[in-house]
């Protein structure tokens, strides 16, 4: 799968053995910047294939199936790995070693190999052998307790937060090790986890400081009702909107002026006011918003240099009910892809914009083993030999 468009990672080959969100989406960010990614699946395919989003996160790569418990399958995998730059896997610590394809064995085979592991919990952690579904890590990491919701207690995060953070750490670690390899000539073991992903999003809310005064935490503290940003969520006559406290532009008329609210408070300092004072102003604004129409209010605010977004359902950003988000279209982030299973789809595109090496969507999610003959053929295997180690239950 070679693109006509230059990518920054052209020439980098990745074997993607990952299951789940963090691996497949993390690898997508490498694939669409030019890396040649081969998804290595068990016969019949990655068991998470039915998962929502998998059609998106597994595009732009080729697929082979290998029964790694078959000695010939293992040998075929080793041949692939000998000539590859990166391996990505997301199994519990120890699983890859037991299959004979852990970091030590692979590094011995290929000294330049960058080997990335992203289990749920780090090797050596007391939870390392526990199941790693995203919601379990939300619970164990403390993230569910951090979110104020409509009742007390932990709140289930609809967005799979730990996975949606680890998916950034996977490509970050891999490219960093590729850069280091330019200096050292050697690959290395890069390890992250969903737990470390969960920590990524604590940057604004978790600090321990022995001498910080009590008001150090005020703005971002967990509170009921939830803090300043939640209070900027407003119901309008036909939906909801979220205006921003700042837009970087000079306002023509203020938000309060446009709403007909006599509050006379600078939006930027609103969050620092005592809560009673905030509440009074918020009540006045709520009343004014309730009589507005969503799209008219958004247009009027934007004309007056206020940043505001309608609060829409997932899918609406791509045009699921009406037009797609106009700026998302301008960013090239709304892409049409013919998927072998779903047909005509519209998906989120490439979110990293490099001027000289822009990268590209390289094609839809492959079917399991779609490229067996092509890839193993290059290694000299006959179709019969390929079938023997790439289908379920076959034994050499």
């Amino acid at each position, binding site marked *: 799968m070679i693109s006509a468009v230059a990518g920054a990672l052209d020439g980098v080959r990745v074997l993607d053995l990952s299951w789940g969100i963090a691996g497949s989406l993390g690898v997508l960010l490498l694939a669409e910047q030019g890396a040649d990614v081969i998804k290595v699946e068990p016969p019949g395919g990655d068991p998470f294939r039915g998962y929502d989003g998998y059609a998106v996160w597994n595009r732009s790569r080729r697929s082979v199936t290998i029964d790694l418990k078959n000695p010939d399958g293992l040998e075929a995998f080793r041949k692939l790995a000998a000539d590859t730059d990166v391996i990505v896997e997301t199994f519990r610590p120890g699983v890859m070693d037991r299959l004979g394809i852990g970091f030590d064995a692979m590094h011995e085979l290929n000294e330049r190999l960058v080997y990335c592991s992203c289990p749920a919990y780090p090797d050596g952690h007391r939870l390392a052998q526990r199941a790693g579904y995203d919601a379990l890590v*939300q619970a164990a990491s403390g993230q569910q307790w951090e979110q104020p919701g409509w009742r007390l207690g932990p709140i289930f995060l609809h967005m799979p937060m730990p996975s949606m953070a680890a998916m950034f750490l996977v490509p970050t670690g891999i490219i960093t090790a590729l850069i280091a390899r330019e200096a050292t000539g050697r690959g290395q073991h890069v390890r992250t986890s969903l737990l470390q992903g969960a920590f990524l999003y604590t940057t604004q809310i978790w600090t321990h*400081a022995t001498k910080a005064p009590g008001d150090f935490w005020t703005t971002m503290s967990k509170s009921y009702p939830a803090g300043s940003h939640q209070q900027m969520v407003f119901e309008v006559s036909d939906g*909801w909107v*979220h205006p921003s406290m700042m837009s970087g532009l000079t306002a023509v008329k203020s938000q309060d002026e446009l709403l007909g609210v006599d509050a006379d408070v600078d939006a930027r300092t609103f969050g620092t006011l005592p809560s009673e004072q905030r509440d009074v102003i918020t009540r006045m604004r709520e009343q004014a918003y309730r009589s507005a129409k969503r799209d008219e209010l958004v247009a009027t605010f934007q004309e007056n240099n206020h940043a505001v977004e309608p609060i829409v359902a997932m899918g609406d950003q791509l045009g699921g009910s009406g037009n797609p988000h106009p700026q998302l279209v301008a960013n090239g982030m709304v892409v049409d892809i013919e998927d072998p299973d779903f047909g005509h789809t519209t998906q989120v595109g490439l979110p990293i914009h490099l001027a000289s090496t822009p990268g590209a969507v390289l094609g839809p999610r492959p079917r399991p083993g779609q490229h067996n003959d092509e890839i193993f053929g290059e290694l000299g295997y006959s179709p019969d030999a390929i079938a023997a180690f790439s289908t379920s239950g076959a034994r050499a």
Partner: protein
Amino acid sequence: MNALEGVTLIDFGQYLAGPFGPMIIGDLGADVIKVEPLTGDGMRFVNQPFIGCQRGKRDIALDIKHERGKEIAMKLIEKADIVHHNMTVGTAARLGIAYEDAKLVNPDIVYCNTYAYGLEGPLAKFGGLDPLFQASAGLEYESGPVDEGNPPMYYRFGMCDTANAMLSVIGCLAALYHQRKTGEGQELWTSLLDGGALFASDVFLVDGATHPYPKLDKHQTGLGACYRLYETGDGWLQLAAVTEAQWRGLCDALHMPELADDPRFADVPARNINRAELEALLGERFKDKTAITWMRLLTDAGVPSELPVDTKGGDLAFFDADNERLGLVAEYEHPILGTMRQFGSLIDFSETPSRARSAPPMVGEHTQEILEWLGYSADEMDALKRDRAVYWPDEAYSWTI
């Protein structure tokens, strides 16, 4: 050595989506120099979010609009491998430090601008904060969830900011790798809008209509009877009975074997259709025992579950023995805040370790050592400070951090 040792990054950013990415690149070993206005980073006044994206940096306080300050900025760019900031479209050009300006003194530079919306297009001129993009991507709508009659809910993690920053990290590293291979630098950009969009990338359209996806319930407990929080006799338990074997194990552990053979709950689609009935049955049973008791019984039956932990604002995670031993916690001394802990290494490297070099800097904390590095004498520095082109901390230090 650290992986990015020898890489210099000049960080002209403020607030979050600018500075967070350079901090992560600094953790990987780069020397990150924060260029801060003499009035301080605009986010210092909100304390914690500021302190969450600055550790490990050296800080020079510089007035770029001052002729001598601009001169120093260009000398920094000349020495840099990466320039990074989150100014709104056109601002860097007005200041004379856009990619075109940088390229003149440093032709192979990697130059990254993180935006709110994007480089060009109908809303490109707007700056804006994280909540806008929790709205545009559908995150606030689903977390309410609005379809169940609740208001939209803002996630207090502010993760669209972090997403924009992390996309910029990946982009800068990819561009740096390309530069090491070919000798060619380039400019790149990312945005909060695209970062938010990626969080909703599991949802796609088929023939223009949104493909169905799992929904949160009104009480914000989860996505279905087998993947949600339950209230037990003494608190909450997160259940994840995802496979068929786990479902059968769940029925055993709860001593409700009749459910396993009930046609209403025969498979995943049936359990989704009859979600409310199943949730009522399980919810009632979970009240009979404490959370830890249920977790042990479920573990014995091969069913994943976890106790939701209240870390008390992070402290219990930062003083957790496993997290400490595995390097997930960083500790440093701050001149005002005392002994600080924040998250530590998020990525471990077997040969080139990550690091958290030092506490978040004060305004201009390293101005003198950076000017010395650029070749300025002590007398010249004093003159620059008197002239209000630069600043370093003195008795008049007016910030709380």
